[in-house]
């Protein structure tokens, strides 16, 4: 029972990270119908920036902030350069461009920082806290949950209560009508990429220190899991992405806890296939016909 509780809590904390990657993907996908395959690599690049600042200044929080700012800047840069006309092309071109950007960033990082693991510290201790004799979660896990929670609430508040959020929803709903109403659709799309970049960088800063360390491909598998989460949620629903993230985190935590940690990614693949086969539109997507 203790083990079950531990795996559950652990799964939720991991799920929060997958959820933020999923949200980064969904924010872009719902407005431009582009799945940004370079999202993970951009997040790693931000984390490298954060690490460099931490090593130089010695302040974790300065590095943390740098990483988030850098993530946003990279998002804007990607949108304004290689993905500039991506939403007007077929579905194949943006995917290939994303893959191209992915290997450019990863090999550039390997050249600049070396291909081996670099140390990125956590914000708080990873020692497990005990609650009534059961080892539950660490301060770092609590920080992860809190940080992701704050970002999600902020995002939800922005989307539902502010003027800019209304414009974002209008753009996602129908870009042409939004433009006719005087919304600067281009700016709104770029803002989406900036938010996605920030959320992705946050995920990298949270997940990298708990994994194998910082190396150029550190986010590749996290990206796959984030994509799985987003698909479970339906690729265009933000709340769906959150639930999908937690579901993925739990499924992987149980799979690695009860079946063996080698099977973590196989479990993710099986989960992804299961969802795609049984409910390809995801569990939370609005009902829209596939356009042909």
């Amino acid at each position: 029972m203790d083990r079950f509780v531990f795996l559950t809590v652990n799964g939720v904390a991991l799920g929060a990270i997958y959820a933020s990657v999923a949200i980064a993907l969904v924010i872009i996908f719902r407005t431009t119908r582009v799945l940004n395959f370079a999202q993970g690599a951009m997040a790693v690049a931000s984390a490298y920036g954060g690490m460099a600042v931490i090593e130089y200044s010695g302040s974790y929080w300065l590095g943390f902030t740098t990483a988030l700012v850098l993530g946003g800047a990279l998002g804007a840069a990607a949108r304004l350069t290689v993905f500039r006309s991506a939403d007007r092309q077929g579905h194949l071109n943006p995917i290939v461009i994303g893959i191209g950007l992915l290997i450019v960033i990863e090999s550039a990082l390997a050249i600049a920082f070396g291909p081996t693991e670099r140390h990125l510290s956590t914000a708080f201790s990873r020692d497990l806290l005990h609650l009534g004799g059961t080892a539950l979660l660490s301060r770092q896990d609590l920080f992860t949950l809190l940080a992701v929670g704050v970002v999600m609430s902020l995002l939800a508040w922005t989307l539902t209560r502010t003027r800019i959020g209304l414009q974002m929803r209008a753009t996602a709903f129908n870009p042409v009508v939004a433009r006719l109403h005087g919304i600067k659709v281009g700016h709104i799309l770029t803002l989406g990429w900036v938010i996605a970049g920030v959320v992705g960088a946050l995920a990298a800063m949270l997940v990298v220190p708990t994994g194998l360390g910082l190396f150029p491909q550190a986010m590749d598998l996290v990206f796959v899991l984030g994509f799985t989460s987003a698909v479970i949620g339906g690729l265009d629903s933000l709340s769906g992405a959150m639930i999908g993230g937690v579901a993925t985190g739990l499924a992987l935590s149980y799979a690695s806890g009860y079946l063996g940690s080698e099977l973590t990614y196989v479990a993710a693949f099986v989960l992804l296939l299961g969802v795609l086969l049984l409910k390809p539109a995801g569990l939370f997507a609005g009902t829209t016909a596939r356009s042909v």
Partner: protein
Amino acid sequence: MLQIKLVRHGLLTLAAAAVVALLVLQSEDVSNFEYIQVAAYVCAAAGLTLLIGVNGQLSLGHAALMAVGAYSAALYLRSGSEDSLASAGDLFVALLVGSVTAAVVGIAVGAVAARLRGPYLAGATLALGACVVGVTTYFDHLLGGDQGLTMPLTEVPAPLSAALTSYQWSALVSLGTALLVLFLLTNLKYSPVGREMAAVRDHEVAAQLCGLSVARVQINTFVVSSAAAGAGGAILGVLYLQIASPGAFTLFLSIYLLAAVVIGGLGSMRGAVIGTVIVLYFGRLIEDRVAHLGLSTAQTDRLAAHLPLAAFGVLLIVVMLAVPGGIQGTLGRIAPRLLQLMETVGGKK
């Protein structure tokens, strides 16, 4: 029409085979060793270009299908006695086993892929590629975990052993297989089956209204593409790497293949060959240049390992943004105009 094409492709293949045989016999062992890699990549790239270019399905997991080919060939070759050399017969059967096993896996993957479109398919195949390490580690008693499975060395058959070195024999087998794959896939592309694949790519609903089963055509294409990838994987594992290990079949291999078919021009078999040669030799060229820059060993290693990949990334982006038809498409567009130009110039004289 089909018969004419068939004869033409057959003659072209025979001519290419003659050139290849001469090339192999003239070349040093080092070059022949490189040809094996080219042949392996060409097989997989030809399969991938059929899938992406002709049928419109994207796969970012072809390295996994190559891994299936390499591992099944390894299991077949190791099922014999432990330290004997693999005879020519064994080698051919191993390549066939690799190809067929990959095709069988392709049925399952294709059945899933046929239900997916665009980014969903890309993400699912990406996840498939990420499974290789997990599967090989989990079944490590059978698949050897991280270490992988070593292959027995291949033996040049007795009548040829005086004339050929072992590398020449391996290169001949590999390039011959690649030519066979190219011949079969090119004919397939221009056959009624190939037209069905293209119809499904161009307009699913219209294809359906013509009485085609979209899912069936897509699964068939995936199976054929997997068989080609499996043959490529078996060549790469048995003859080039002489080992089947998860480290050889990573996401980067899938991206190399994608870069080859995109740069060469999607849907064209000739483009797949040109793209593969460019990707492999352009990479080598960059490594050579880096080695002559006079940097420290560590810096040279780092640049040599990663600069080619960065260059392919840039090429992928540039090709997609500027010349979506790739080299073959651009040649196809420019060549008639050049001819026209030459005619007008000639006419004025």
